[in-house]
C-alpha cells in the first residue's frame, strides 16, 4: 500500500465522520452511553468493594482467657505466639479492668448500674485480634486453638453473614456490569449495522468500480477508531466530573456519612477506568466497522 493511499484513507475517515454526521453522532452516542454505564458501575462497584474491605478489616476475633489470671510474662508469650499466626494483623491484650471500663463506656449514663462490679470483676481478661482478611478466620482459629491456656470465642454466624453479604454485593455488581456490557455491545452492533446499511449503496458502488475490500474498509475503520475515541472521552469526562463532585460533596457536607463511607481517590479510579474505556471504545469502533462491513463486501 502506498503512503498516499494511507493519507487518503485518513482523510476519507475524517471526512466520512463529518459527511455522515447523523450516523457518526449515533455511534458516538451509543459508545458513550455504554462506557458511561460501565464507568458509573465501575465507580460504584469499586467503592462498595473498598468499603467492604475496610469493614472486613475492622471485624475482629476475640480470644478469651479462662478464669485464671496469668502474669505479664505469660501474656507476652501468648501474644507473641498469636502474632506468629499467618494473616493476623494486630493483637491487643485487654485486662478485666479495661473490659469493665469499656462496658461502662457503652452503658453511658447508666454506668453507675455497674458500680458494684469493680471489686469482684466477673469479666475475664481477653485478647482482641484483627485479621488481614476476614476470609482467613477459620485457619486462624484452628491455630489459636492449639495455643495452651486460651479459649476462643468468635462470632461465627455473624462473620458468615458478613462474608455472604459481601459476596452477594460483589456478584450483583459483576452480573450487572456484564449484563450492561452485553447490552452495550448489542446496541453498538445495531448502530453500526444501521450505519453500514445506510452506506450499503456507497459500498456497492465502490465495489462495482473495482475497489478492493481493503480499500473500502480502511476509511471505515479509521472512522471507527475516531468515533470510538470520542465516544470514550466524553463519558470519561462526565464521570470524572461527577465523581469529583460527589466525593467532595460527601466529605465536605456530611459528617455522619464519612464514618461509614470511604471512597477511592479520583486518581485511583481513573488510572484503571481511562485505559479500559479507551481500549473498549476503540475496539468497539474497529471491530464494529470491520465486522459489519463484511456483510456488504460480499457483492
Amino acid at each position, binding site marked *: *500500500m*502506498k503512503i*498516499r*493511499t494511507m493519507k*487518503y484513507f485518513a482523510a476519507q475517515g475524517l471526512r*466520512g465522520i463529518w*459527511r*455522515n454526521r447523523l450516523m457518526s453522532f449515533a455511534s458516538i452516542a451509543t459508545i458513550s452511553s455504554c462506557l458511561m454505564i460501565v464507568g458509573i458501575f465501575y465507580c460504584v462497584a469499586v467503592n462498595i468493594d473498598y468499603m467492604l474491605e475496610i469493614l472486613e478489616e475492622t471485624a475482629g476475633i476475640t480470644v478469651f482467657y479462662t478464669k485464671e489470671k496469668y502474669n505479664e510474662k505469660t501474656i507476652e508469650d501468648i501474644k507473641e505466639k498469636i502474632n506468629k499466626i499467618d494473616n493476623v494483623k494486630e493483637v491487643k491484650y485487654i485486662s478485666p479492668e479495661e473490659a469493665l471500663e469499656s462496658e461502662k463506656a457503652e452503658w453511658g449514663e447508666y454506668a453507675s448500674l455497674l458500680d458494684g462490679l469493680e471489686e469482684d470483676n466477673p469479666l475475664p481478661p481477653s485478647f482482641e485480634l484483627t485479621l488481614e482478611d476476614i476470609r482467613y478466620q477459620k485457619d486462624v482459629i484452628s491455630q489459636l486453638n492449639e495455643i495452651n491456656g486460651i479459649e476462643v470465642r468468635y462470632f461465627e454466624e455473624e462473620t458468615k453473614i458478613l462474608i455472604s453479604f459481601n459476596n452477594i454485593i460483589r456478584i450483583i455488581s459483576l452480573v450487572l456490569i456484564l449484563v450492561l456490557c452485553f447490552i452495550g455491545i448489542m446496541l453498538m452492533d445495531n448502530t453500526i449495522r444501521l450505519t453500514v446499511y445506510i452506506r450499503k*449503496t*456507497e459500498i*456497492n*458502488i*465502490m*465495489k*462495482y*468500480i*473495482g*475497489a*478492493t*475490500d481493503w*480499500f473500502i474498509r480502511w476509511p471505515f475503520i479509521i472512522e471507527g477508531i475516531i468515533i470510538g475515541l470520542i465516544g470514550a472521552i466524553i463519558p470519561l469526562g462526565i464521570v470524572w466530573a461527577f465523581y469529583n463532585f460527589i466525593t467532595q460533596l460527601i466529605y465536605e457536607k456530611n459528617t455522619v456519612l464519612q464514618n461509614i463511607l470511604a471512597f477511592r481517590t479520583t486518581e485511583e479510579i481513573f488510572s484503571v477506568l481511562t485505559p479500559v474505556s479507551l481500549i473498549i471504545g476503540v475496539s468497539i469502533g474497529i471491530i464494529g466497522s470491520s465486522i459489519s462491513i463484511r456483510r456488504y463486501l460480499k*457483492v
Partner: protein
Amino acid sequence: MIELNNVTKTYDNGADALLNVSLKIEKGEFAFIIGSSGSGKSTLIKLLLKEVEPNHGDIIINNKNITKLKKSRIPYLRRGLGVVFQDFRLLPNKTVYENVAFAMQIVEASPKEIRRNVPMVLSMVGLSRKARAYPNQLSGGEQQRTALARAIVNNPPILLADEPTGNLDPKTAWEIMKVLKDINSRGTTVVIATHDKDIVNKMKKRVIELQEGILVRDLPKGGYSDED
C-alpha cells in the same frame, strides 16, 4: 477479448433475462447492443462485471474464464472494465470531481495524475463547470455524463456503457458519441447498450440485437431493427 458461450441467466424470481447467448467481441471493436425494454441488455453487462452470475455457460474476458474467477480477483477484473451504469451509481457523498477521482484513487494513481486527468475528462464530457456539485445537485444528463467521465478516466481496455445517452438531448448525445468513438479509435473495445435509433443508424457499427433474452441479430454494420 469478450466471449460468451451459451450463457443463460434466469433471475431468482424466475425472470428469464438471457437464453443461450453466444457471442464474441474482438479487441478494438465498437458494438451496439439493442433490444426492447426488458430484453436482457443490462443483464448482459452485469454478467461481464460479475454483478450477477450466469446459470449456465462461460464468459471469457481477456482469455480468462471469469465464471471461475476467485472472489479476491474480482476488483481487478472490474478495473479493466470502464462501466457507465444505466442508473449512474454515483457516490452521493462525493462531488463530481471526487467521484471521478475516486476511480483513480482505487488504482492508486498519483495525485499528480489525478489532478491532470480528472479535469481533462470532465471537460471532454462538458462538465467542467459542475466539478464541485454533488450528484443530487445535477440534472439527469449531468449525472449520466459524470458516470461516463468516471468510466473513461482510467483508460480501461474495455468500456461498457448501458444507455449512456438516455438522458441526453441529441446534440449532447452526439458529442458523447464522438468521445466514445475517439476512445475506440485509440484501441479501447467499446460496447454500448442503447435505444437511440438515430445514433445506431448513423454510426454504422456492429449491432447485436436481443429479444426476450435471445440473440436474434448480429450484423457487422447494421442499423436499428424496427424501422417504422
